[in-house]
């Protein structure tokens, strides 16, 4: 069964189509990342799934219900982490979670939630005294305390330092083991790659890709050889097959090719002749980021945005 069904979803603000004929389904228990540049329609789509906005046309069903008409029972089955932290600062973490837990029919225990979001040591700290990362985890804690079947995470790690992001990721990963369906919007490609088993790319209000991280990566073009070359004397003797791929300022060699065997052989032979250490050599598939950029580039260009 699908936890979320979206068909022909469109939302216009005046003449502006923020979301334009978007359709997808999310099966129970899946963690889906919705990616896209600012203005792609991610938050607008999410707000229609959450029931905050009514679509201009199309249909949305979350747990079989139109979110705009969701009742208390439906709300109790949904968890939300909004784009910005929105907490009353005066109470402690434990008191805040206790207040929110009282709204749900079968909430998780406070201790369980504190464990899930790694805030056990801060339970008695006032929310206003927490760091940005810790507050964000309180947001996540409130989102999951009602034992939601569907959890919406709207850019949950924006503004967090790398360590705080990793901790938030762990909290989300812990949730997926409980069977919760998670819809995550994010600007971080590596976050989507790490957490999601499915990616929906939005650009200019439309779905431009609906695939797995591996599937998107495979659409990113040829494999890549990267290496920084600093030996000026040796560079003068660089094989012609490589010389055209050097960045003049950074001295970085970047070769993209369907078959990297030949340029790699030329590079290794050249390094061997000049007794150079290629310690920084990188050989790999196209990055997810490259694939993402390629995927969103077409709709932006077609609407006249890119030169």
């Amino acid at each position, binding site marked *: 069964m699908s936890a979320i069904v979206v068909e022909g979803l469109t939302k216009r603000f005046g003449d502006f189509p923020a979301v334009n004929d978007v359709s997808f389904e999310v099966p*129970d228990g899946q963690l889906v990342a919705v990616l896209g540049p600012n203005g792609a329609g991610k938050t607008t789509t999410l707000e229609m799934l959450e029931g905050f906005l009514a679509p201009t046309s199309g249909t949305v069903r979350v747990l079989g219900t139109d979110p705009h008409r969701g009742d208390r029972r439906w709300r109790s089955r949904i968890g939300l982490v909004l784009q910005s932290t929105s907490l009353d600062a005066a109470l402690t973490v434990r008191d805040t979670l206790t207040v929110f837990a009282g709204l749900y029919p079968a909430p998780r225990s406070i201790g369980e939630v504190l464990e899930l979001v790694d805030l056990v040591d801060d339970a008695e700290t006032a929310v206003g005294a927490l760091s940005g990362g810790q507050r964000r985890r309180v947001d996540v804690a409130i989102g999951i305390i009602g034992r939601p079947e569907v959890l919406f995470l709207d850019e949950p790690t924006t503004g967090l330092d790398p360590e705080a992001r990793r901790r938030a990721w762990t909290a989300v990963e812990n949730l997926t083991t409980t069977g919760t369906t998670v819809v995550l919007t994010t600007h971080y490609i590596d976050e989507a790659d790490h957490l999601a088993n499915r990616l929906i790319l939005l650009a200019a209000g439309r779905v431009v890709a609906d695939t797995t991280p591996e599937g998107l990566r495979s659409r990113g073009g040829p494999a890549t050889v990267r290496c920084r070359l600093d030996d000026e004397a040796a560079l003068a003797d660089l094989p012609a097959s490589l010389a055209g791929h050097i960045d003049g300022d950074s001295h970085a060699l970047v070769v993209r090719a369907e078959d990297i065997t030949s340029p790699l052989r030329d590079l290794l032979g050249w390094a061997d002749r000049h007794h150079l250490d290629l310690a920084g050599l990188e050989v790999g598939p196209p990055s997810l980021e490259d694939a993402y950029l390629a995927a969103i580039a077409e709709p932006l260009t077609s609407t006249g945005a890119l030169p």
Partner: protein
Amino acid sequence: MTGTVASTTARMPRVGRLLAAQVSYQSRLLASGRAITIGVGFPVILLIASQAPHTRTSAIDIASYACFGLTLTAWNTYGVRLVAARESGVLKRWRATPLPHWCYFLGRILATVVVAVGAGAATVAAGVLLYGTHLTVSGVAAALAAFILGALAWAATATALTAAVPTVEAASPTFLLTYFPVIIVSGILGDTSEPHWLSTIANYLPARPLSHAVGSALGHTAGNALLSPRDLIVLAAWAVAGLAVAIATFRWEPHRPTQQRSSRREVSNDLPHSKAAAVPPSSRG
């Protein structure tokens, strides 16, 4: 799916319990040190400053300053905080929960009534302790009823006004500019010599009837009515009208500046948060 059975079959919490919890929660948030300073400390200081040494302070004076503290809390403190909560997304956060919307709304107003009445009562207690003003039990009970009705009228009207306040920056000036003129022409901070027509208007604003009701209750003498029906009717009318307008116009979402959107997308030069990906800017993701 883990938790599905529990969340679809378990009984939803009773709304009475939710409302009580909400009143308690909101009261704790509202009764901060700053709110107590404004709602109790400020009126008591003014009460002391306005009295000549060794004079016997009348119940009317105490009632006026108690009403000043009560209305400051129910109007200014509450109204500004409500706008701040809306603009910071706190209201949207609550709207996303299974708490009935009316329950949050009413809980917040009732919590304000509790804290504002507490502020007014504390000022009365301070006046009695400082000046030995004699009060009767029936007078205190009637004053408490007037306090509750007055706090409800002011909080309900403040809730209605929040819909017209677009930002946190605009909240303080708006609430203060709509507050002090009413308080001054109503004679709460001392007698004024306003024109007759202005005095007539003040009789139908919520400050003078509240002050008059509390003053007549605290200064009650045998043979006189504890409370004037006219005062109570004016306060009740403000409470009902304020609630009606608030219900019709209340906004849960932060204010979004009006913007001209075109279908032509802008291109940003900024990089995404990770490694690359040029993204066009927009207020909506």
